[in-house]
């Protein structure tokens, strides 16, 4: 099974569902805090598995350990979770895909690809609130107890052995993908928690319409036609509509866009590079079109989009790339690699003077760049 595809599709699909009924949120009351279930029960077994996964995760080089960022995201989860705050443990994982998940033992994972994509704190709160919704309603346990899932689980353990199965958690999570009803519930709870924590619930709908833009940009067309997850669930645009209607009944609230911008800024350059390296040019362009069209003029978005064009290198792409790189440089504060990329294009186009000037600028701005020697040899080739 293609793990990446599964996660990407699962992450989107997990959230691509649900027709939430407005009004239901008033009646909903959070349960009391959970105590650790007995190890001899199925729930206890599930927790033990997740505890083990969490121990591995803590050691993982993929975890982002920056304290300020962790405290910030943990704080958002805490505000949403209310009394359950002490049981929430957020782990930020460096993976350039849209995904968040929450295990029954309180381990929450937020992937960097999600943080790159959301536009403000309220949007992240919407995803986290939704995941907390699954947690509060013990949806994983429900799935485990579902007869079909249980036999699938047994088969799975049989196939890999318990240890192997633990290493295949992503696949496992996919097998326990939530039902349409559960997603609907999680949406309602998520919006309710958002509202209670003072967030603008209108932001929840935007996440799914934004994600849909990316998925629809894939060269293989509408994901609903390709992915089995999308095929069995209501489309993301339906969900976006329902969430918007739900938000209309829960007015007011903040987006905290400024705080968000400030907290994310130190990481964005790195996350954008990871996004470019996925090699999914059309999805990245959809994402970067949206991001670079935002109100804040961030040179990194222009550089990143130029780089996607440069690497895709279809007819006309190098011109578009040049335009973005020049715009990034004009904004100021651009990544040094902007000038390397300009130099590489000028070099291929046999514009030696421009190429050398750009390379020089790059070497100047990035004196410790790993490719200094190669760039210098390019400059020597260009002559004087």
């Amino acid at each position, binding site marked *: 099974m293609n793990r990446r595809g599964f996660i990407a599709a699962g992450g989107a699909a997990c959230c691509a569902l649900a027709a939430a009924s407005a009004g239901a949120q008033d009646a909903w009351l959070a349960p009391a805090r959970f105590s650790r279930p007995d190890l001899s029960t199925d729930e206890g077994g599930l927790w033990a598995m997740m505890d083990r996964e969490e121990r591995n995760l803590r050691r993982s*080089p*993929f975890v982002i350990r920056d304290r300020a960022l962790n405290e910030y995201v943990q704080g958002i989860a805490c505000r949403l979770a209310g009394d359950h705050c002490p049981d929430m443990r957020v782990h930020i994982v460096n993976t350039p895909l849209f995904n968040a998940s929450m295990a029954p033992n309180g381990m929450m994972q937020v992937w960097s690809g999600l943080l790159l994509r959301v536009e403000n704190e309220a949007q992240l709160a919407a995803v986290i609130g939704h995941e907390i919704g699954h947690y509060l309603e013990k949806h994983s346990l429900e799935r485990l107890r579902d007869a079909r899932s249980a036999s699938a689980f047994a088969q799975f353990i049989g196939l890999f052995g318990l240890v192997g199965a633990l290493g295949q958690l992503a696949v496992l999570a996919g097998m326990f993908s939530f039902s349409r009803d559960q997603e609907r519930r999680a949406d309602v709870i998520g919006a309710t928690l958002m509202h209670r924590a003072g967030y603008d619930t209108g932001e929840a709908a935007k996440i799914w319409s934004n994600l849909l833009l990316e998925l629809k940009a894939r060269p293989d067309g509408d994901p609903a036609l390709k992915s089995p997850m999308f095929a069995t669930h209501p489309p993301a645009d339906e969900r976006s509509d329902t969430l918007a209607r739900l938000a209309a009944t829960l007015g007011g609230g903040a987006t905290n866009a400024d705080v968000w911008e400030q907290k994310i800024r130190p990481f964005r350059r790195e996350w954008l590079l990871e996004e470019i390296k996925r090699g999914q040019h059309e999805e990245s362009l959809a994402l970067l079109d949206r991001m670079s069209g935002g109100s804040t003029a961030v040179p990194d978005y222009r550089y990143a989009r130029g780089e996607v064009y440069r690497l895709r290198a279809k007819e006309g792409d190098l011109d578009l790339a040049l335009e973005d790189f020049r715009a990034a440089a004009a904004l100021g504060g651009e990544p040094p690699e902007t000038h390397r990329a300009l130099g590489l294009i000028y070099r291929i186009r046999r514009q030696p003077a421009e190429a050398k000037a750009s390379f020089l600028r790059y070497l100047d701005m990035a004196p410790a760049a790993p490719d200094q020697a190669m760039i210098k040899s390019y400059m020597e080739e260009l002559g004087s």
Partner: protein
Amino acid sequence: MKRIVLLCAVLVLSGCVSIAKIETGQHAVGDRLTVNIEGAWNHINAPGMGPAQVWTMEGMAVDQLLLYSGIRDGQAVHSGGGNDNQKSMTYRSNMQPDEIAALFEGMLTRDGSRYRLSKLEPVSLGDLKGLRFEYSLVRKIDNVQLAGVGYAATSRGELFALLYMAPRLVFYPRHIARVEHIGQSMRIKP
């Protein structure tokens, strides 16, 4: 690592794997590439392994030396094709040195592993101008931190390359001198 071990186990059981010992001396890889070896390596051969020869000192799940000889325009540098979520990394004959380094980076990160280039420099391989690069890699399937080195050059539109990687603390330092020696010894027939 588990997946690789499992793969090896399956292949060994099915009897398709052959392991040949490569002894000290000069070796031809494909039609046009020769290298000089000091010390013995194991050449792993199994169906579906892709366009590179795979050599190892410690076992495939630990260290790997990939040798590419005569990769043509449009040919992928890995086994299997691309799909929705895994880019296919294909050599193009007009690739520049920076693009060749990026090609191997793309190949090594197809499974979500994390790559960091630490050096990219020109190198002379006989009469040919080539490139040499160093990198680190955090392998996605088991979080093992690897270090690696690569050599590459193109000739008559074909790609020739060597790629080595091993866990960075023990195995990489143990074998890197031999690997550099092999890299420097790469000669491509005109």
